[in-house]
């Protein structure tokens, strides 16, 4: 992980993650490690899904109209989503075509060995 402050990082949703809006925020499911993550705030969902369109987390927060006083709590939420592999650092800081959250990489069989966090509902 980089030494850069999280606010300066260029981030995006992991391409293997699908996000489904819910009244409490959203459900994020990682097809690679089969982890289900509950995103419990609609504003965090809006920021997370907009990350790929901006050069940094700070720029995304500004674009989403989040006042600076609230940035620390958003930064904390985004770090936690990075730890669960919902969000990752972007390879190129330049903004690419908008990534659709349902797009999935198909060349990553290796990821299936990640199993520690898998959650089962049924």
């Amino acid at each position, binding site marked *: 992980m980089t030494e850069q402050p999280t606010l300066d990082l260029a981030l995006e949703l992991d391409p293997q993650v699908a996000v489904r809006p819910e*009244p*409490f925020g959203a459900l994020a499911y990682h*097809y690679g490690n089969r982890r289900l993550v509950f995103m419990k705030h609609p504003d965090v969902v809006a920021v997370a899904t907009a990350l790929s369109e901006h050069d940094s987390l700070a720029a995304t927060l500004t674009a989403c109209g989040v006042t600076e006083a609230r940035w620390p709590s958003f930064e904390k939420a985004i770090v936690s989503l990075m730890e669960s592999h919902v969000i990752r650092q972007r390879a190129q800081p330049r903004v690419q075509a908008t990534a659709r959250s349902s797009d999935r990489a198909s060349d990553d069989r290796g990821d299936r060995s990640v*199993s520690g966090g898998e959650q089962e*509902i049924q």
Partner: protein
Amino acid sequence: MSAQTLVSQLKHGLDAPICLTWELTYACNLACVHCLSSSGQRDDRELSTAEAKRVLDELKALQVFYINIGGGEPMIRRDFFELLEYSIGNDIGVKFSTNGAFIDQAKAERLAAMDYLDIQISLDGLDAVTNDAVRGEGSYALARRAMDNLAAANFGPFKISIVVTRHNADQLDGFKALADSYGAQLRVTRLRPSGRGVDTWPELHPTNLQQHQIYRWLLANGDNVLTGDSFFHLNALGESLPGLNMCGAGRVVCLIDPVGDVYACPFVIHDQFKAGSVRDPGGFATVWKESALFEELREPESAGACTSCGSYDACQGGCMAAKFFTGLPLDGPDPECAQGHAEQALLAIDRAVVPAPSLDHSKPTPVRLGRKPVPVR
């Protein structure tokens, strides 16, 4: 938002299930004594390939992330691979449960080449004697052969799925070692008195002493072991086990049975818990969103006789299916209440009035529990 608030929101239900179980056929080559769906023979009314694909189209539109496929033995269906590929191709991950009988080397290689696929091989004993008493003669060897074939095909970490019974509850460490030896993941779930389990549960379910053992074992190993969130009734014993720890029936999960009927969960195949059919005019989505049964299940439940018990917040009164098929009231303690609050009520139940499953697809040959392999302490 705290975890508690999230769970209370989930109890009101979601616009679509997080995942669901779909039993593809009632046909099975085995005749396990605890089969939750009393499977054996195919039902003439089972969904056609085209109908099944229409259901998958609906699930894609609802953004259901993955489905748990079961049966019966799902690999018996001729269109099994076609449906598997159609589902995964539509961003619906698949986890399927199988007894392994049809996973030869060629099928193992075909399965290993697919992404977003999990396989659960069922095994109910660490040795053939323990396993075959429940799952039938030769079933242990079939399951192990499937595991060997998947390992040889480099499938990766498949899952070994155990239903915990009185006879295998003392083998959990051994199951973990077996899974580790394959690089597989262990899954242990709770025995429910559903399907043919209605008749065998009384002598197969873990003793109260074993339940305490299971709880301690899950606390120690739970982060690396899947449970389907099925042991939350044991949270009455103290610290909560990993998971949501709530009954998801009709709220975040449900069952589609082989003929397309939608039930609240895989363990309640009974008319009282049937919400509708995927063949109804509005399809699955309308059943999920509008059925009177599911709306009722999303209302706050009554703690009933459990109101005065300090553990209710932890155990939630246990499993609806377990209560229903043992004849206990739904707003009272689970038959395996860890505090022992159901013991008197269970003794008082007239076995003749315990609800029977609404469907039985068992083969005509009687299904009997095999020789008891382990002395019960």
